[in-house]
């Protein structure tokens, strides 16, 4: 099993400044799956609890001179502490060396210890080099790698309708305040571009409605529902006509997932999976200096749906 690559400046920026801070909000540790073509960071893919996050990069987006080999179709998977990885990358950047190399090694702290695996990050400058060892779990055996890959493949389906969230920071600010009012957030997505957010308790009912958002996928005309009705009546009518989906999610989990604004996406979308399976947030990134989607980077979050207010 071997892995060695050189981190590009852009790759370090993507990870250390943008993606690792966002993923740390979901959980302290995550899986990393390295394949011959992709580098994938995954949260909660093997369980159904908590926010599932999948950040996928082509190897060229982060690395130069990428070399990988293993007995499992040249795939390697392990778990890493995101704070440690982030700190190591940050201090490597401050070294301002010529080359930032990362590789998988096994080392022993003392001669009597058994060798344990690390991701070693080596920053080589003109006069000095800094080596940082980030501890990782034992790379996963074939069975577990297959399991991870299967879970990843299952998570590729997108909802039939997605609406574009116009201002992610404003949505984050709104949902953070709704968190103080109640624990369960009802999210409604319609095919004519309306996004409904609603919190309801015995003492209060509070909601926000985003109208006429950009729609990706299956769409309907906004005249399909009676515009004279109020917000909740319109959503009910749309749902009855099959033009909308409504699910309930844990508002704290939704707030965590919205911390993805740290990744600085250029477009954010929200949709509900078929059969109301989960709430999906999808993010797109533009190639720097253009408005073309950079297909080498993708980020999805999936929030588990609450049934009747409980998981």
């Amino acid at each position, binding site marked *: 099993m071997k892995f060695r690559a050189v981190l590009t400046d852009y790759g370090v920026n993507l990870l250390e400044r943008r993606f690792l801070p966002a993923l740390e909000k979901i959980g302290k540790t995550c899986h990393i799956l390295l394949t011959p073509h992709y580098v994938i960071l995954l949260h909660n893919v093997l369980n159904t609890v908590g926010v599932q996050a999948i950040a996928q990069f082509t190897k060229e987006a982060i690395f130069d001179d990428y070399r990988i080999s293993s007995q499992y179709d040249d795939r390697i998977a392990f778990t890493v502490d995101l704070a440690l990885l982030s700190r190591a990358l940050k201090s490597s950047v401050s070294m301002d060396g010529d080359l930032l190399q990362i590789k998988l090694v096994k080392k022993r702290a003392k001669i009597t210890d058994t060798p344990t695996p690390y991701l070693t990050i080596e920053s080589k400058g003109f006069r000095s080099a800094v080596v940082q060892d980030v501890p990782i779990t034992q790379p996963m055996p074939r069975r577990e790698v297959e399991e991870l890959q299967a879970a990843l493949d299952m998570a590729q389906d997108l909802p039939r309708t997605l609406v574009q969230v*116009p*201002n992610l920071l*404003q949505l984050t*600010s*709104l949902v953070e*305040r*709704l968190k*103080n*009012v109640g624990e369960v957030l009802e999210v409604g997505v319609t095919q004519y571009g309306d996004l409904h957010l609603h919190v309801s308790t*015995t*003492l*209060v*009912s*509070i*909601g*926000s*409605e*985003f*109208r*006429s958002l950009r729609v990706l996928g299956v769409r309907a005309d906004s005249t399909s529902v009676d515009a004279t009705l109020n*917000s909740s009546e319109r959503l009910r009518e749309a749902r009855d006509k099959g033009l909308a989906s409504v699910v309930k999610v844990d508002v704290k989990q939704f707030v965590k997932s919205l911390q993805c604004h740290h990744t600085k996406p250029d477009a954010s979308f929200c949709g509900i999976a078929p059969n109301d399976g989960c709430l999906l947030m999808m993010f797109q990134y533009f190639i720097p200096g253009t408005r073309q989607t950079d297909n080498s980077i993708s980020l999805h979050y999936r929030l588990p749906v609450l049934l009747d207010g409980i998981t």
Partner: protein
Amino acid sequence: MNWDNDSDSGEVGRLRCLLDNVQGLVDALTSVRWKKQQDALCEISEHGLVFTVEEWSCLQARVYFRKELFRTYEYEARARPLFGVSLNLLVDCLNTFTSSSGSTALELRYPGFDMQLMLKLIDANNICHNAEIRTLVPSSVPRDFSVDGNFDSVSPACFAVKSSSLKEAIDDLEWPGSSISIKICPDPQQVIFKGEGHGDLQIVFPYSVHADLFIAFQCDREVSYKYKYKHLRATTANIPSSILKDNRGSKLTIGRGGILKVQHLISVRQSPMDHNHSYQTQGVRVSYIEFFVMPDEDDPDSPRVS
């Protein structure tokens, strides 16, 4: 007025008003929020809204939000509507409306079809925010401390200082862990705060016309009373720091029987805060907050008027 979907006015009375800057109302209500769960009594009249919060029958706060602070204020009633509402819920709901950008007004209506308080705001990005808050039938009428304290008498002992100075002094007085005595002296003209607990702490505010500390001072004869620290603390602890930076004054008056009245002014800008403009260039009005604190009757050494 179009009261679609609202209850028949009957004897209840109706209000529909538009508020330009929700943050001002949030700041005013936050100032009287000294516990996690509090119920407030809301009275609606032709003059505006009054929110009253009471605790332990010896601490009361009132927030006066006059009708001039609203863009429009449409009120009709035979008797003044009075209802209870969760203060914390009201503030948290209003806070979600402050996350909106732009200068569209919050619409507040009472009553809804089920006697709810209804809030609605459509912001500059055409996002529509709605809230319906359940109201409660009040179980009692709050005590009228302003009458009991006889604060309109000819010469109550009183003084006014910057709110930040008062808050700092009260924060420091936590240290002795005891009741705090407030003594207003005519000669020399000064105010003395004192705590004697597991240590002694005395803070003296000397009055001088030339110094910056006092905004006003009035005292004919020495007055001194003790107050429980937690009650005193409630009068300043929750004033938002953005309000303290405005440098407005707080006035303390000791009335009949030692009832302490603490008054604050909360700035309410007519449009959401624009940091590029000082508040002299935009319209700034004020909301009044009053706290009433009963003297500490448990303390047998509690001095009185000399």
